[in-house]
């Protein structure tokens, strides 16, 4: 019925499918596997795949190599000549972190911003999703449709009045505007997705708890929350990366160096020191290290969260 809804309904079968006991099925699977291999071994097909893989890897690799080269080398020779112009240094990272880049303090800001901006919206969304899924009340469907519809409002539309509100409350020098705006902008999608997962819990389980005399709060904490852990993990990773990688909210609500997260700091560095590649290359990788670690270690959850939440923004 919806964009994100349909994304959720997409069969997410990247993980290995449970082993079937039917041997004929396994056999067919193997045959298809073999056939796929022969198909890719056609020179055109593998050629195209390799070209795409290279195009998608080389740019990142080039900047990565550059970040370890001495500044003089970076400015005078391409990174692909690194074998003939050898030179290796950690100094770029030192400079970017605490020297002229000063990214260390921005890294801390990112960290301070991201935790509440993940915990608060997910907790609120879980409560709301529970109410929409398992509490009967008048106007429930209407309210849910309203929440769903708010997903399509681009955050640009809300920024100016929201900023006025924050200034009126005297919050503009604190992290509160960033936390609150990430919460607000994350809520519609979070509620919608978590509601879908809540709905999948069998009614009989919830009914059984109700018969035992559990109220809504107990059912929420004892019955539903443990069942939803994988869904929560997937969405938490997604929200985490969204907040860490965000530029717009950071520029608008955390403009001062005291609050600015690392992504915004790097973007600014690119504008003011566009030719200082020793600084930019190391800085870029400092800003990317957290997403990369999350990506490599939690790839499966991340992909699941992305499949479910691709429309955020």
């Amino acid at each position, binding site marked *: 019925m919806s964009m994100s809804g349909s994304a959720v309904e997409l069969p997410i079968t990247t993980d290995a499918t449970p082993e079937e006991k039917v041997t004929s099925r396994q056999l067919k699977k193997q045959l298809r596997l073999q056939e796929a291999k022969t198909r890719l071994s056609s020179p055109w097909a593998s050629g195209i795949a390799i070209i795409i893989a290279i195009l998608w890897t080389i740019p990142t690799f080039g900047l990565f190599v550059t970040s370890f080269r001495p500044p003089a080398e970076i400015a005078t020779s391409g990174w692909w000549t690194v074998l003939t112009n050898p030179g290796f240094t950690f100094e770029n990272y030192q400079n970017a972190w605490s020297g002229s880049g000063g990214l260390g303090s921005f890294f801390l800001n990112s960290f301070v911003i991201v935790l*509440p901006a993940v915990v608060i919206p997910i907790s609120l969304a879980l409560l709301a999703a529970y109410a929409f899924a398992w509490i009967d009340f008048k106007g429930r469907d209407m309210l849910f449709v309203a929440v769903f519809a708010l997903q399509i409002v681009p955050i640009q539309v809300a920024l100016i009045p929201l900023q006025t509100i924050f200034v009126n409350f005297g919050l503009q020098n604190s992290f509160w505007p960033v936390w609150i705006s990430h919460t607000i902008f994350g809520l519609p999608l979070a509620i919608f997705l978590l509601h879908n997962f809540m709905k999948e819990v069998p009614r009989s389980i919830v009914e059984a708890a109700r018969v035992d005399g559990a109220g809504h*709060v107990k059912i929420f904490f004892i019955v539903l929350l443990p069942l939803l852990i994988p869904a929560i993990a997937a969405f938490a990773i997604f929200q985490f990366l969204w907040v860490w990688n965000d530029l717009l909210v950071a520029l608008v609500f955390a403009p001062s160096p005291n609050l600015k997260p690392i992504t915004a700091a790097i973007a600014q560095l690119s504008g003011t020191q566009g030719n200082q590649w020793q600084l930019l290359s190391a800085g*870029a990788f400092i800003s990317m290290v957290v997403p990369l670690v999350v990506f490599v270690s939690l790839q499966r959850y991340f992909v699941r969260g992305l499949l479910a939440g691709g429309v955020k923004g």
Partner: protein
Amino acid sequence: MDWFLNPTSVSDKLIVMVVAIVLFVAIMGLILWLIDRPGVPNWLVVVGFLGPVTIFMAVGLLYPAMGTIYRSFQVSAIVLGANGKPIINPKTGQRTSELTFSLENYTKIFTDPTFQKVLINTVFWVLLVPIVATLIGLVYATLVDRTRFEKAAKALVFLPMAISMVGASIIWKFVYDYRQAGANQIGLANQVLVWLGLEPYQFLLTEPWNTFFLIVVMIWIQAGFAMTVLSAAIKAVPDDIVEAAQIDGATGFKLFRKVTVPTIRPAIVVVITTVAITSLKAFDVVRTMTGGNFGTSVVANEFYTQTFIQGESGVGIGAALAVVLFVIIIPVIVYNVRQMRISEEMR
């Protein structure tokens, strides 16, 4: 209370972060504790679960959206006194101005050549990024499907999706780096040109093609998303359909075009519309790589420039641009919802 509203030291920041989370948990805990007792009416339970969210969304999304739409129809005009001269505010010594109703913001966006250029650029972004990214994602997902190195191959293309658009922009800014002819190139793109015996080229400065070199970056970012979703869809194509087609003699490209693509059509629609909306709303690439200069601005970037850099005079235009973004998104979503309805009915 200074650390609470204006934290400056490392410890202040960490403390205020912990306090924020604890405060939130305490308030929510109190609310839930209050409604979790026998005899509490159902409506009060609903308020406990939904109240905070409703307030956040009404105050933080609905009300601001209304405000922005309202503001987009206002321009700042100087108040004239009875004598036809501007009224000077005695306190500030400046002319007083007031906001009056006007369509001027919108007429300016659609008639001023600078803004027309912004709109045209946006159209290229919204068309090219989803189409090319989906095409590449689909081809790649098909080619590496069920091969031995599938996982690693997919991770490579997916990686740009995990890093920020700012990071991706810096990676590509380096690829596009320009040095004068004769000097050693340090950007790979220009080195390739030199290897081919061509002159180095100012990829980011030369209009009108620079917009397309920015679009390349967005395609590079979004292809991973397209590939992941489409790969999941391809794996869900039922075996019997594929086998039936194979018995009928379909192989290779024909199988792909006649069986795979029609079967995963709903997923393709989702990917195209999702990527289209992402590229419409994202301003990170333009902001980081050119700042919207050299004729590369798009609506999302111009919104930011007008609203937050231009100052008071740009706020109305910025509001109108935000509304334009909103209005373009609606038909895309409606199309998407209708397509999903159709495919659900067919099931």
